[in-house]
């Protein structure tokens, strides 16, 4: 395809909001699933709702689609309150988790369903169905039944069935979770291209952080009914706002520290320089550093922010290597290296090394100054 995925970021219309959630609250019985969600999703962006199962992301999507009703708050779709509209009168379409293809209809009939319901003239309908099927490259299967298709093909039908209606917003509820890894990665790229080509707003619900990182322009990380952090993908990875995001989005080493000056903190591993904005001297902070930002070396370095460690685990992963290393005080660090062959990255267990934690990558987390057990499954 001749489309540059990078280009699409420019297409996002910064000022026009497609979907606006205003203080959405929802409880099922005694369980509060959404605790006041405020969220604006811009026109033409690929937006992901990321979080562990039970965080409320799917409920939020279902409220927008019209399958659930918020207890309080407002949902605006291009400025219009959708509360009084039943699902069939909302200009959003959903790609369901298990596709929900109609088993008694052929692929073409499935794709034509929405158009038929909206009484699109027969000639126009045929052309639209054909081009939608071709767009997802399943034109050859038009006359088959869903039962005769593979998982990936069903996924494409579900996609065609939604986009053929040219909705204002396309909702995708973990659409790739039932597929195997290789297929998932291929479809991720295809979804991104499709989104770029159509210029549609995509709201993508997933519990897979890698998927969200790969595909989204912006995302919201949700946990227990609240948005933990909202922002651009890169910004959120590089500067996680709190311990939950740091742990859920990729992995992180978390370090408790006390501020000793405007540039230094004291931790159990010693004194570290930190480039990030620090609070007043004497306050406790929680620092986060990504495993791949830490470098290991055999030679003792005179640089600051270096600690002596001993390798405890060596996990070979092909392109990358993952190590666990313990400091003298027993603190365990997670460290990732690139298997590029350029730098020395082949260490063995029990080897004594020096870990360098660059000041630029020690991020001060908000809202929490002490470690606590972090809830949620990190699948």
């Amino acid at each position, binding site marked *: 395809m001749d489309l540059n995925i990078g280009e699409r970021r420019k297409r996002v219309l910064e000022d026009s909001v497609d979907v606006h959630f205003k203080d959405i609250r929802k409880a099922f019985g005694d369980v509060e699933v959404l605790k006041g969600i405020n969220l604006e999703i811009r026109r033409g962006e690929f937006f992901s709702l990321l979080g562990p199962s039970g965080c409320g992301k799917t409920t939020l999507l279902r409220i927008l*689609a019209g399958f659930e009703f918020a207890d309080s708050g407002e949902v605006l779709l291009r400025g219009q309150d959708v509360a009084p509209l*039943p*699902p*069939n009168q909302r200009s959003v379409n959903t790609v*369901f988790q*298990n596709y*929900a293809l109609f*088993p*008694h209809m052929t692929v073409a009939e499935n794709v034509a*369903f929405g158009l038929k319901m909206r009484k699109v003239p027969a000639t126009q309908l045929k052309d639209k169905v054909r081009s939608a099927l071709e767009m997802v490259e399943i034109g050859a299967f038009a006359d088959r039944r869903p039962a005769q298709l593979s998982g990936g093909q069903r996924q494409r039908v579900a996609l065609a069935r939604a986009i053929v209606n040219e909705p204002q917003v396309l909702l995708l509820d973990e659409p790739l979770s039932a597929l195997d890894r290789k297929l998932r990665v291929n479809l991720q790229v295809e979804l991104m291209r499709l989104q770029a080509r159509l210029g549609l707003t995509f709201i993508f619900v997933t519990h897979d952080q890698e998927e969200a990182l790969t595909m989204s322009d912006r995302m919201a990380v949700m946990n227990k009914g609240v948005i933990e952090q909202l922002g651009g993908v890169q910004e959120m990875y590089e500067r996680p706002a709190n311990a939950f995001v740091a742990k859920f989005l990729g992995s992180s080493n978390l370090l408790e520290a006390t501020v000793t000056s405007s540039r230094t903190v004291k931790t159990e591993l010693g004194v570290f320089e930190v480039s990030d904005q620090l609070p007043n001297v004497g306050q406790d902070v929680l620092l986060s550093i990504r495993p791949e930002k830490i470098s290991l070396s055999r030679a003792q370095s005179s640089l600051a922010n270096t600690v002596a460690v001993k390798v405890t685990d060596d996990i070979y992963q092909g392109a990358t290597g993952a190590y666990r290393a313990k400091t003298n005080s027993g603190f365990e660090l997670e460290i990732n290296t690139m298997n590029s062959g350029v730098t020395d990255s082949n260490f063995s267990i029990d080897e004594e090394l020096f870990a360098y934690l660059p000041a630029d990558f020690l991020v001060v987390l908000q809202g929490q100054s002490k470690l606590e057990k972090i809830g949620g499954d990190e699948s």
Partner: protein
Amino acid sequence: MFWLFFLPVMALLFAAWHFGLRRNQVRKASLGLSLTSYLAFGFLYAPILVVAVMSFNNSRFRLEWVGFTTKWYAKIFGDESVTGGLEGAQLLAATQNTLVLAIISTAIATVIGSLLGYGLHRYRFPGSQLTAWLMYIPVVTPDIVMAISLLLLYQVLRNVAPFFEPGMPAMVIAHVTFQIAFVAIVVRSRLATLDPALEEAARDLYASPLETVRQVVLPLALPGVMAGALLAFTLSIDDFVISFFTSGPDSQTLPILIYASVKRGITPDINALSTIIVLLTMVGVFLSQILQRNQK
């Protein structure tokens, strides 16, 4: 003499069943279990088999085997040269009544029962759990209790509407009352196998609630609806007790006719008629099972 006919047939049935077990690789049963099963099946089906065998007996009254004949079947299907047994006109009227009753009551019960099944599947409302539970009462209530209660109810209602005089309309209502439960149970269990997201998908694709039912729910529930209807039809055809208590002079059905004539002694054409009814019922149940099995 009779046993000469009976034993080989039973043996054949057992063999077929046993062979079926082997072929389907079901866990092998011990000899004791097999024997018990064979005996149980024997007691269940022997009476039916006796009736079927006797319907081919060329004897007017006796239970002993005289010779093979198909004349009793011929008589049922209008051969007036055969003497003995029931009156042809009575038989025809009873057959007509049975079919009219079964068709009308099944049609009504299928519509109401399917709606009930869908309603209970789809919606949670105050009392929905109670309704689902109450649905099983007509299924487990003994026919005689049901018949007596209907009789009492009709006696009260008769003062308001002549509609409830013993006769065909009253019988239709009586049959519908117990058929609804069966249809609703079958339809509901079919709906339970469907992905609830299918209805949401239809709604998401601009279908109104009515269109959703028409385009998605009904086509997918159809095997269940048909199975329920067949079940209701079969139940109506072979119902005796409830029909007996609600029938009038002009609405005798086959089971009632058979009962009435049996009091004067079992005639061979009744055996033939019973065999036909059993066969029809079996076909109905069989089709209903097939429809329920073909659920993807």
